[in-house]
């Protein structure tokens, strides 16, 4: 090249395989030195700052068939190339799992949503990521492909720590599968951010299945309140198998605060985030219950 252009990231070899098998073959060949490039909305910022410097990038954006979003029986199947924006716009998702529409709409900004993927968010496992937090309140299973074959893993097993998962270097996430709750059910995801489009200071997802006026099952997940998303199981126990009274919700909010393991950072102190966890739980619980009862409610104010 005659002219030297401005560059920020370190040099890498670039591959754009057309099939999952080709991608896996490249990952096998380059091992730890390779990285998958999906939406690039977490990886590129890190490469520009040279926090990440892979020698080889396997761009999976040209693999056909990974952008499918469809219902298969009682599960919603989300291909690895489904973008945040696809989830915002999908009427299927809004109808079956409004908690996911909430999460999608509150993730980043429209430009980032056009490229960032659900699967990439899970693989990245940011403690403040919205998909890990919201999907932890659901029956979410990660579909993984490796040279040896395919396997599935529940999301709560997949994410092991901040930014770390059970994925091997030569594996890739090919999709995410979500169990569709039987109606009447409803879910909501509520996020608090310091400035528009930022990661969460704290977030709470609640999914409720009703039977009459009792909560047959309740799932409560907390985001940005620990190294991984946390299921507040003690809080769930208080509201499960009962009609949700004010007393029970108070007690559950208390247990949510106890379940949170926040760390202090520029977004807030431990005390503040713990308090927020309780507040957001109340909001998410109320919205989830309303939706389970067939009411239309918004969790974000545009």
């Amino acid at each position: 090249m005659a002219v030297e252009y401005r560059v920020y990231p370190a040099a890498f070899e670039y591959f754009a395989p057309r099939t999952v098998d080709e991608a896996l073959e490249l990952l096998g060949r380059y091992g730890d030195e390779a990285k998958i490039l999906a939406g690039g909305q977490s990886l590129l910022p890190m490469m520009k700052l040279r926090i990440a410097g892979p020698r080889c990038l396997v761009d999976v954006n040209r693999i056909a068939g990974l952008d499918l979003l469809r219902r298969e029986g009682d599960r919603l199947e989300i291909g690895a190339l489904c973008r945040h924006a696809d989830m915002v716009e999908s009427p299927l998702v809004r109808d079956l799992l409004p908690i996911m529409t909430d999460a999608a709409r509150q993730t980043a900004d429209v430009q980032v949503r056009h490229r960032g993927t659900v699967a990439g968010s899970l693989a990245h496992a940011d403690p403040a990521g919205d998909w890990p937090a919201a999907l932890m309140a659901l029956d979410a299973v990660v579909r993984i492909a490796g040279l040896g074959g395919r396997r599935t893993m529940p999301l709560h097993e997949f994410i092991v720590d901040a930014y770390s998962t059970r994925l091997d270097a030569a594996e890739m996430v090919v999709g995410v599968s979500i169990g569709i709750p039987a109606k009447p059910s409803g879910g909501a995801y509520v996020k608090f951010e310091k400035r528009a489009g930022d990661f969460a200071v704290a977030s709470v997802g609640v999914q409720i299945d009703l039977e009459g006026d009792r909560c047959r099952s309740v799932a409560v997940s907390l985001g940005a309140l620990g190294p991984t998303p946390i299921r507040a199981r003690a809080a769930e126990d208080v509201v499960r198998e009962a009609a949700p009274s004010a007393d029970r919700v108070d007690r559950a909010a208390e247990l949510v605060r106890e379940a949170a393991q926040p760390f202090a950072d520029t977004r807030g102190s431990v005390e503040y985030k713990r308090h927020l966890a309780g507040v957001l739980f109340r909001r998410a619980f109320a919205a989830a219950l309303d939706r389970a009862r067939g009411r239309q409610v918004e969790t974000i104010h545009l």
Partner: protein
Amino acid sequence: MASPVQIRVTINGTLHTHEVEPRLLLVHYLREVCGLTGTHVGCETSLCGACTVLVDGKAVKSCTMFAVQADGCALTTIEGLAVNGDLHPVQEGFWERHALQCGYCTPGMVMTAVQLLADRKRPTREEIAHALRGNLCRCTGYTHIIDAVEHAAARR
């Protein structure tokens, strides 16, 4: 240096063919290789939206995509909006409603607004503000920018 890759990109209707280093960011490709300096680099860290362009009709931050990834795509940059010297309705809105001061954020703001109006005929002020979350402006306080997008929506 990693092996250069050949790309073919249609920018504002014109086909460009170049060999690029894989690590070249799309925004630097547009500005330095193609000479299209209307797209600005603001923060360089994926936060400000000054570098927003449309890739196959979708607003993206061109500092957060590699040029090689645009191979085979159709791009629209701020230079591609006016037709024969007639401003695009969003550009006209910015003009009429004084939606810029220093102008640094303007190309990105306009591109994001163009995308919004392609999806929604008459967005509310709240929807406009929500759509522009990824675009920072250090001068205007945003009110006039929202006015401008409203103006453009009403003119169509």
